């Protein structure tokens, strides 16, 4: 009762001062909040929003980077889709790369995580070794593999020869160049493995105990308990993997330069070449938009399709 009276009285007497005092304090709090996140607001505006918005215009221009962009409408896109002899091979190579590298590294990462999950003698040592290749810098890794794939003295063909097998063509043939690049990525499967491993270890132990009591076998337990429980991580890794694979660049730049015969000319590499070697900035930005839209569509489809299989713990309580 007293509270109600006090609240009613407020607007009449000292309420005005009181309210403005609160809001001034509140306002100071808001300003403080914005000051703390200011670096990221600037970062977001300058490094994300500005390039995104300005590239909508640049995509419609002919622009060499140093001159003034000249508006040409959809000419760039017309040329890309109908004339450019390197575009469709690049799209093909990019899709092949995504379809080969993403599922294989997910599957191998998960397999290794399962093998490394339960205790074994030397398990820590094994985890260390499997993660080790991922700490090797990208360029160091790629240069190392360039020598491994060298036809005559490289490690790959030396081992094949010793095993009495025919030599591989690796990076030198249209058919094997792209799979060889995917293989280098599989050497660095450790980062995915660690993420799956921590996912496996957060699966509640009592679920396994219940499965054992019910007499479920190893495979059943894996597919009915382990896999559903880690689907959120699988989905996140799948989506990040897809976005990352569409951006692959270093592998091609260091190892093949897009060849032989465009078989490894991934779109991101073509964009780099068109912009910084051919000085066709407007054209390259049009290609950026095509790659961006492809990536988004692919990601959305992956999400929509896979999300049906994802098990969210909170759904369970309904």
């Amino acid at each position, binding site marked *: 009762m007293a509270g109600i009276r006090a609240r009613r009285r407020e607007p009449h007497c000292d309420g005005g001062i009181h309210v403005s005092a609160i809001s001034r304090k509140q306002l100071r709090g808001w300003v403080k*909040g914005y000051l*703390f*996140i200011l*670096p*990221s607001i600037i970062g*977001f505006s*300058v*490094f*994300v929003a*500005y*390039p*995104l918005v*300005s*590239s909508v215009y640049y995509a419609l221009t002919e622009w060499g*980077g*140093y001159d003034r962009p000249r508006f040409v409408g959809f000419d760039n896109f017309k040329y890309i889709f109908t004339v450019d002899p390197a575009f469709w091979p690049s799209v093909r190579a990019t899709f092949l790369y995504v379809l080969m590298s993403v599922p294989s590294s997910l599957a191998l990462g998960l397999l290794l995580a399962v093998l490394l999950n339960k205790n074994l*003698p030397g398990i820590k040592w*094994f985890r*260390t*070794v*499997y993660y*080790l290749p991922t*700490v*090797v*810098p*990208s*360029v*160091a890794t790629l*240069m*190392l*593999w360039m*020598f491994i794939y060298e036809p005559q*003295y490289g*490690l790959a063909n030396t081992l094949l020869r010793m095993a009495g097998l025919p030599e591989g063509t690796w990076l030198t043939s249209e058919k094997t160049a792209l799979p060889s690049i995917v293989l280098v990525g599989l050497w660095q499967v*450790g980062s995915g493995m*660690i*993420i799956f491993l*921590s996912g496996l270890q*957060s699966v509640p132990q009592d679920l396994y105990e219940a499965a*054992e009591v019910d*007499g479920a*076998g*190893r495979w059943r*337990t894996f597919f009915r308990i382990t896999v559903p429980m880690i689907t*959120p*991580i699988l*989905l*996140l890794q799948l989506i990040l993997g897809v976005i990352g694979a*569409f*951006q692959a660049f*270093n592998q091609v*730049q*260091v190892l093949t330069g897009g060849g032989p015969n465009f078989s490894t000319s991934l779109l*991101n590499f073509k*964009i*780099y070449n068109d*912009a*910084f070697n051919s000085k066709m900035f407007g054209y390259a930005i049009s290609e*950026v938009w095509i*790659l961006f839209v492809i990536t988004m569509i692919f990601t959305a489809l992956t999400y929509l399709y896979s999300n049906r299989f994802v098990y969210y713990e909170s759904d369970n309580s309904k």
Partner: protein
Amino acid sequence: MAGRTALRTGRRKAKFSAWDAARFAVLCIGAAAMLFPLLWMITIALKSDTEVFSIPPEWIPKELHWSNFVTGTKQIHFWRTFANSLIIAVLCTIGQVLSSVLVGYGLARLHFPGRKLWFSLFVGSLMLPGFVGLIPLFHLYTGLGWYDSWLPIIVPAFFGNATFSFLFVQYLKTISVSFDEAAKIDGASDLYVLAKVLAPMAMPIIVTMMIFSFQGSWNQYLEPLVYIVSPEKWTLALGMASFRGTYATAWNLFMAADLIYIAPMLLLYFFGQKFFMQGLGSVNSAAIK
């Protein structure tokens, strides 16, 4: 039936079951495949110029040519390039960690309108592929006269890293607000609370951020390739890639130099292994939430 028995003994850790033995064998083969390229690299780095190309190959060099590590590092002004990489990596690490900690604190602990919106914008920008910004930003930096300098690489580091801010926000959620409140009753400012109360408690995640930031900068290739032209400003990633054309025949020298390029990462990994695992583990917790 056999599977069930194996599972049970596996749990008790009493016996080494058939399943465990199979796992062990597969893991051994896999580990050999993982290590072999690196071991091969070390043997090449220690071989003489001619021994590199002997057929059949000598797996273990007859005599160890440690001098390759000296000759190899003379090829690309290695140590100056090494120093360049180190300076850039240290500055980027400082910038990213400082700014991300500030932003993370603001997002996790302060209340202001639009907080959720900014948080989702920052996290959402993680999904945006990096190539979208490259060309307009190149135009921006050349306009500022930053072409052929380290500025396009270092300056952006001071404007927050969405992944790190996100990790810090997640970590702060596990620390009770009562710590902040206690300090604030004693008259502490937000910066004081962050620096003296929360940061010491959040040290594990801060160290993780430092390691990943340093590693990211040490590995970075595309941005230096686009912005840095003069060889005396190169980073090691550029320097090592330049071995491709020029010194293609001197494998032993290249491998020796490459090993020194890798060494800081290996040291970081062996001494900070816990933090590597922790950082990647928190990606997993982020997926569930």
